[in-house]
């Protein structure tokens, strides 16, 4: 084993492995990690056997759907028309189906259009699973067969499916007594997940027609097809005639279902239940998805339990009221946040902030939010972002008046009384601004505004502190990596590279930053 491994190390040597000498310990660990050989028994879900009641209890609100799926899958070895399972994201479609297959112990092959992001990868993934081929270092992480076209896929699939089904049939003959690992039945099920992502591939219409007609093309009784999609069947209608499948619908959870689901695996159920009484109804008005609610609730629950000394205690009415009054001011602002991942430093900052603000009344939430920007940006990047924002939001004609060094010409303009026509014109202009969104600007304008702002900042700083470092770096230091900063801002999607202007031929940029973020950055 050691001999086999060493030539590979020289072939694909990383810096780490070539620098550390191969000691006897390493040789031994390489011996232990032998690649796992797949067998026919690996087609099933595996693990412990799952009874029907366990299946029902692990999916609290999905009893009807589970029963419907079990009915449609039918008894062992009964042929099946293809199923089309659809519903909103995070309604439990994939997990329910996989657990059903675990309960039934039937062999299946699973491929998701999320991880297999093109037809070729999808085909090769299915064929790899059928051929029991695992990608590992020994074969250079390649698939067993190269398969690009649907015609090749169908030919290979027919051959591989027949051989797998033969193997399953021969398994039956070998051992009549059922062991937990052996698959039951001669049928193989193909599960295709996240079908709606095919819309974004090239040649998506032919790809989708191919997937939907796969059952008719294969014409094999021992294969069952299950398609899982996040969008309803009417989004797949094409003008080539649409092949329908048997629909199974997973509705979005109701509030009671959500309560049942969120209460699972909670150490203190009564406490969490009182928390949900307060929080669930208002949050359900914005979204009913389990994943979004659970990410919103976990930090809130911590805040709710703050006054409690003993987290395992059962709250009585008086304690509930106390907790509620402490918790209440936090509900409204958290309703307006979507996603807040607390980092370690910010929790410390929180405790500091709480101690300082104890005495004073809390300022409006707006002020607090502006103080924190939760990612790091260098100073020049901040200036660049603000210049991009200004360039996008203001038309080029205003540049001269805004960035004039004297800044005094505006005040000399006489303010006329706004006539009705100009008010209308203003409204129309506002409407247009809303519609068009941020404008595009060429690179030269961005650099000009950037230079204006930084020179103004420099002069400001000069008056305030005699900072040698800043002056030494000065203009040259800030300008040198502007283009680098620009490309990193483009990668972070703060600035979008638009189409090129037909007259000048230079690429134009557009800022995607909202006013809030610009204000935060400038703080």
């Amino acid at each position, binding site marked *: 084993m050691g001999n086999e491994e060493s030539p590979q190390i020289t072939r694909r040597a990383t810096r780490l492995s070539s620098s550390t000498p191969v000691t006897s310990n390493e040789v031994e660990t390489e011996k232990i990690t032998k690649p796992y050989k797949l067998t026919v028994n690996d087609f099933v879900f595996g693990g412990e056997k799952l009874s029907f009641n366990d299946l029902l209890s692990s999916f609290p609100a999905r009893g009807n759907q589970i029963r*419907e799926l079990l*009915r*449609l899958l*039918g*008894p062992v070895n*009964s*042929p*099946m*028309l293809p199923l089309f399972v*659809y*519903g*909103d*994201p995070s309604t439990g479609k994939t997990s329910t189906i996989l657990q059903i297959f675990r309960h039934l112990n039937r062999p299946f092959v699973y491929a998701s259009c999320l991880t297999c992001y093109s037809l070729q990868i999808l085909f090769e993934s299915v064929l790899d699973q059928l051929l029991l081929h695992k990608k590992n270092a020994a074969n250079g992480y390649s698939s067993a067969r190269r398969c690009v*076209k*649907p*015609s090749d896929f*169908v*030919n290979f699939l027919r051959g591989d499916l027949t051989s797998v089904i033969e193997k399953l049939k021969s398994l039956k003959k070998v051992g009549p007594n059922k062991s937990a690992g052996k698959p039951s039945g001669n049928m193989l099920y193909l599960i295709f997940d996240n079908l709606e992502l095919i819309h974004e591939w090239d040649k998506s219409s*032919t790809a989708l*027609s*191919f997937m939907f007609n796969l059952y*008719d*093309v294969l014409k094999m*009784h021992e294969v069952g097809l299950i398609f899982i999609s*996040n*969008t*309803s*069947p*009417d*989004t797949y209608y094409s003008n*080539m*005639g*649409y*092949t329908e*499948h*048997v*629909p199974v*619908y997973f*509705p979005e959870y109701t509030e009671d279902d959500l309560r049942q689901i969120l209460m699972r695996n909670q150490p203190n159920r009564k406490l969490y239940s009182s928390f949900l009484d307060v929080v669930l109804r208002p949050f*359900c*008005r*914005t*979204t*009913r998805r389990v994943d*979004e609610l659970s990410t919103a609730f976990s930090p809130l629950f911590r805040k709710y339990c703050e006054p409690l000394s003993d987290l395992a205690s059962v709250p009585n009415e008086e304690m509930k009221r106390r907790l509620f009054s402490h918790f209440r001011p936090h509900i409204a602002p958290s*309703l*307006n*946040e*979507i996603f807040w991942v607390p980092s370690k430093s910010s929790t410390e900052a929180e405790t500091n902030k709480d101690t300082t603000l104890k005495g004073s009344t809390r300022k409006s939430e707006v002020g607090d939010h502006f103080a924190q920007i939760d990612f790091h940006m260098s100073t020049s990047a901040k200036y660049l972002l603000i210049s991009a924002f200004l360039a996008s939001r203001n038309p080029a004609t205003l540049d001269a008046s805004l960035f004039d060094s004297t800044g005094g010409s505006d005040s000399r303009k006489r303010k006329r009384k706004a006539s009705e026509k100009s008010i209308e014109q203003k409204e129309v202009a506002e*409407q247009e601004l*809303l*519609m*068009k*969104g941020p404008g595009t600007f060429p690179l030269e304008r961005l650099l000009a505004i950037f230079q204006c702002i930084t020179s103004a900042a420099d002069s400001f700083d000069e008056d305030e502190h005699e900072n040698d470092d800043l002056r030494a770096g000065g203009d040259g230091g800030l300008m040198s990596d502007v283009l680098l900063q620009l490309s990193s801002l483009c990668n972070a999607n703060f600035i*979008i590279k638009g*189409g090129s202007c037909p007259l000048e031929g230079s690429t134009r940029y*557009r800022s*995607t930053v*909202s006013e*809030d973020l610009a204000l935060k950055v400038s703080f």
Partner: protein
Amino acid sequence: MGTENLAEKAQILIRSRLCSPNFIFKPLSDSPDSNYSKLKFIISSSIMEACNNSILLLGPRGSGKVAVLELVLSDLLEEYPDTITVIRLNGLLHSEDNSALKEIARQLCMEHHLLFSKMASFDDNSQFMIAMLRECGLAHKTVIFALDEFDLFAQGKQRLLYSLLDAMQTVTSQAVVVGVSCRLDADQLLEKRVRSRFSHRKLLFLPPSKEDVQRLLEHILSLPMDSSLACDYAAEFNEKLQSILADKRFKEIISNYLNSNSTTNHLLRFLFIAISNMDLKSGFLSLENFKAALSSIQRQPKQECIKDCSILELYILVCMKRLEVREQNSYNFSSVMKEYKSVHDSFPTSDYYAQNVCLRAFEHLLQRELICFADNRGHTQSIEFRQVKLVVSYAELQEGLKSYRSCPAILLKLIDR
């Protein structure tokens, strides 16, 4: 226990019948003027008279065109062994000429036990095909080309069709080209030179009539008396089945169901769900199975989508509807937010959320395809400024709001204006 076992066996039998088209379409093919007999006559006469022929089978999807073709081919293979070679192509897979010729060469090699080389070029394959056609013609063997999704072969330059039909005319070959398509105007798609070599024979596949449907139901759902199932169980099952089929409510269900789509495949899907609903304990079909199958297969996806929306998403939909009613045909997320703010100003509610929460709800609606982008500038603008439009109609939205549990009254009032 015994009845459950029998019921399971009966279920498996009927399910396998529903999944095999051969069984379904056999009784429809008995009469002499059915498509089956016509097709069989055309192909067998061209085999016997050693001449070339071409024919198109047209009909809506799911009417059994390929099934009837397969029945005819299997019968002919039995009647004339060793004189027929069948090559099957599918427009979804082989619409490109390269892959089509490769597939033809591969199937010919498989039939005649020759070695197939994957590296053969397009010219090699086409020369091979012409040579094989000539040889088969000299040996009085007929090659039948079954082209599924024929209209997809008629896209582009139609090189394959031209070379096939041309080879049939010039070389001493005996070939029959059968095209199957769900486009009724498939022959209009052909180029002039291809159409002139085509024989313009068309067989139309119509949906089954009421008597045919009745016969089909009996044929599929009745258990055979001479199978492994116990005789008295089968007899009782068939008796109960007859009483259901004669029931007026059942006839109403079937005719209601077939009003939308009367092809055979549609009916088979319905029967599949009904038979899966069969209660294994009692072991017999009942009318409730069919009623439950009807409600589970007849869905209104947009209504379900609206029911799945949260209240904020409904607000956004109603705001978009109001913008449309005001004849503001192009709007984007920012204008919707402005409308949302004005609605909140005139009817202050607690449902006023910040921009990012509304954007998230907006993205959910995009994902569910209740709204969609009206332009193609995905790369140069962010979501807030791209034009959107409503995909769900006013009536659907209204009905969805009415049937929504705990819909705020303000929304109903707004949508009624």
